[in-house]
């Protein structure tokens, strides 16, 4: 189904940043949980996992029940335990933060239960009785996987159409390897697909030019509903001279090549990462982790204004990151390969300060200034509206065109894996409700 991952991937250099619990540790931590009523951690989790309940089950030695509670709300609960920014989600909302005690380590407890489920080979869900309905899912990332699994539990047949060779979207190709390596994501996908009845077609681009690429109209003809979980597009470009020099990469593309294959860092001693979001911070930490001696983040704003999480930036500083605040790259220079970055310092209004020009030597540059939006292609269909490039949907994930639903990064503009799961799940329920009310795209399939 997916191309096997080479064992020599650069990402294998990384170990886990947050370590798993030993069994006794997990029980001790779980026992600290207060089992809050109307718990704030549940409200902080986009998939609304019943966190106090899964933790209580760990405390009583019921790891299997605990894992089930997690997967019931979030089928990618194993990934999320590792990749979620828990500091700003569940853990950040724990009532212990208001007491003189550390908050419950919810992510690590979730990892304890879900890792155990994988290690023991526990499965919890069966496909529902066949309804005869067929749903196409555009893209094989977290949003589509969550939607497909829920749709299967409800008995609808699913076909995932993925442009790339690997499923999992950015959860396989993007997340920092010290949180989770690609092989874990692939293992999880196999576990998800084991429910059966999810056909996977890789190497096909919906709306693409290839002979096997289905058009949007093909989907309307062959399926009863379509879920679009296409994520975001390629790295945005800066639009300054020298961007095409060797050694200047889009950050997401470079991270993908590091996770799925090998990147050659021979001779790279100084790197510059342009941007101030989480992708930029990941890039900085990944380069440092792969042995680049000096890595500088170049960000146009101030520490307070950066969109990357404070806890991630603190960790990057501990890894040895350098930074230039209020700075933009104005030129990339070198013969063939990048040699230096010319930059300008900015004032409060983000205007270049006179005499504020400076230069950074660099053997490698990552551009982490955002990803393009993919929505345009969909806009060809009447009724599908876009909002600043994002697909506009209602509370259930329905677009303005009957039978077309969407969720994940292509709708929210780029959030987390857990948001994609939540939005895929809710769209699956909405599709099921639409079918129940007689909806269906294929001729003769509706009521």
């Amino acid at each position, binding site marked *: 189904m997916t191309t096997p991952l080479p064992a020599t991937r650069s990402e294998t250099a990384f170990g886990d940043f947050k370590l798993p619990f030993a*069994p*006794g540790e997990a029980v001790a931590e779980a026992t600290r949980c207060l089992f809050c009523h109307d718990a704030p951690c549940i409200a902080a989790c986009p998939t609304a996992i019943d966190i106090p309940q899964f933790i209580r089950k760990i405390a*009583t030695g019921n790891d*299997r*029940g605990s894992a*089930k509670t997690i997967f019931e709300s979030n089928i990618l609960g194993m990934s999320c335990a590792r990749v979620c920014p828990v500091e700003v989600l569940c853990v950040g909302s724990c009532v212990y933060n208001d007491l003189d005690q550390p908050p419950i380590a919810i992510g690590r407890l979730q990892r304890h239960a879900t890792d155990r489920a994988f290690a023991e080979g526990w499965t919890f869900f069966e496909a529902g009785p066949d309804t005869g309905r067929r749903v196409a899912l555009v893209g094989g990332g977290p949003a589509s996987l969550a939607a497909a699994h829920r749709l299967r539990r409800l008995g609808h047949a699913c076909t995932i159409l993925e442009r790339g060779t690997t499923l999992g979207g950015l959860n396989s190709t993007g997340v920092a390897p010290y949180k989770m390596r690609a092989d874990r994501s692939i293992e999880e996908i196999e576990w998800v697909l084991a429910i059966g009845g999810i056909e996977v077609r890789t190497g096909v681009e919906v709306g693409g030019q290839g002979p096997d690429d289905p058009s949007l109209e093909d989907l309307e003809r062959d399926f009863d509903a379509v879920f679009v979980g296409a994520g975001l597009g390629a790295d945005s470009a800066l639009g300054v001279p020298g961007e095409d020099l060797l050694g200047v990469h889009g950050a997401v593309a470079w991270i993908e090549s590091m996770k799925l294959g090998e990147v050659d860092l021979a001779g790279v001693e100084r790197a510059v990462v342009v941007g101030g979001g989480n992708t930029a911070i990941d890039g900085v930490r990944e380069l440092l982790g792969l042995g680049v001696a000096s890595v500088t983040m170049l960000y146009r704003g101030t520490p307070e204004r950066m969109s990357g999480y404070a806890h991630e930036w603190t960790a990057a500083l501990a890894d040895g990151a350098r930074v230039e605040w209020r700075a933009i790259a104005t030129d990339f220079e070198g013969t063939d390969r990048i040699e230096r970055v010319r930059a300008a310092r900015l004032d409060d209004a983000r205007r270049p300060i006179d005499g504020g020009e400076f230069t950074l030597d660099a053997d490698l540059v990552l551009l982490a200034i955002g990803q393009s939006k993919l929505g345009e292609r969909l806009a060809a269909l009447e009724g599908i509206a876009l909002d600043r490039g994002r697909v506009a949907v209602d509370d259930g994930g329905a677009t303005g065109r009957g039978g077309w639903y969407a969720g994940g990064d292509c709708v929210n503009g780029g959030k987390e894996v857990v948001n994609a799961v939540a939005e895929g799940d809710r769209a699956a329920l909405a599709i099921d409700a639409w079918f129940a009310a007689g909806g269906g795209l294929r001729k003769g399939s509706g009521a």
Partner: protein
Amino acid sequence: MPDLSTDTGGIRSPNPFWLASAPPTNSGLQVQRAFEAGWGGAVWKTLGTPIRNVTSRFGGHSIGGVRGAGFNNIELITDRPLEANYREIAETKRLFPDHAMIVSLMFETREEWKEHIGRSIDAGADGLELNFGCPHGMCERGMGSAVGQEPAVNERITSWAAEFSTVPVIVKLTPNVSDIVPHGLAAKRGGADAVSLINTIKSIIGVDIDRFVPEPRVGGASTNGGYCGSAVKPIALHMVAALAREREFGLPISGIGGVADWRDAVEFILLGASTVQVCTEVMLRGYGVVEDMIDGLSEYMRTHGFESIDQMVGKAVPGFREWGDLDLNHELVAKIDADACIGCQLCVAACHDGAHQCIHPQEGSRVPVVDESECVGCNLCKIVCPVEECISMETVEHDVPPATWNQHVADPVHHPLRPKKGSHG
């Protein structure tokens, strides 16, 4: 999926988890929420001639930082109008026909018992529970534990209930007696269909050492209350098991006292209970705790090959014997896993000061060693060790055949004892 449904003396419920008669079963909306959360049955807060309560009413016993590890109360039976109670019982039963609705009663005269048994059954009770247990407030009025402590009174009132009731009658026993068995037998003679135990244990939960008043404080004074919660489980387990193994007894048992999770429930069931009742854990954490109770019990049954609760009930009773029937030649010694040891030496202190002086520190290492020739296999070191599975108790193989004290005193020649250890004699 194993079948969790149960039958206790003719009262059926979808699972063995019932709420005990107490504040969590005070009103219809509460019990309805509890049934929605998954509770299989509820014993309604004891009905009687409505009373007045004091404030405050509850005391908590923190043990090692665990708040409410023990709990006590000085509240009485329902303080709500009987009309309201019966109306809500009927409403709840109508909404949840498959759940067990048991009405707890405590009255004085035969006429009162007759009237309220009739009204309870009219309201839809699947069973009655006679509260012969309350150790405070009601006993001074000749009810509660004053009944439960007198087998003759217990038998008489039970026989009235058996006479008036068309639904099964459970007698709820008080633990405030020296031996539970005669009280269980009295309930049986009176015609009970089942017993439930334990009610709360007479207690003073603590003393306010600045105000010089016991707790919970009611102005400048307090009174003895009823102790319950996790801390009482060992006492409750013993009383349940004592009745379960009594040959003349044989009635179904609903086990109560310190059930806080599915493991506690499994223990009660293995010692003879067919349902368990919970009060304190729900008071401390809410109805939601039942989810893991059901889930954990199902998982336990699945992994242990039990298909129904019946198959589990009393499984550990044959393993509960008199001391004189235990094998004196069974020999255990403690083993320390040096790789797991963290060097705290709690076991050294415990063995030296509290046992038989046979765990010794070693020169140049924090890992102590057990002198197996002196170790009596008492378990103390294992109990204090903070590391799971670091200290194990291992069986010593020897040639002396098993012999109990009773066998040995009857026939010492054929039932010799192995050499004594650890007496430093």
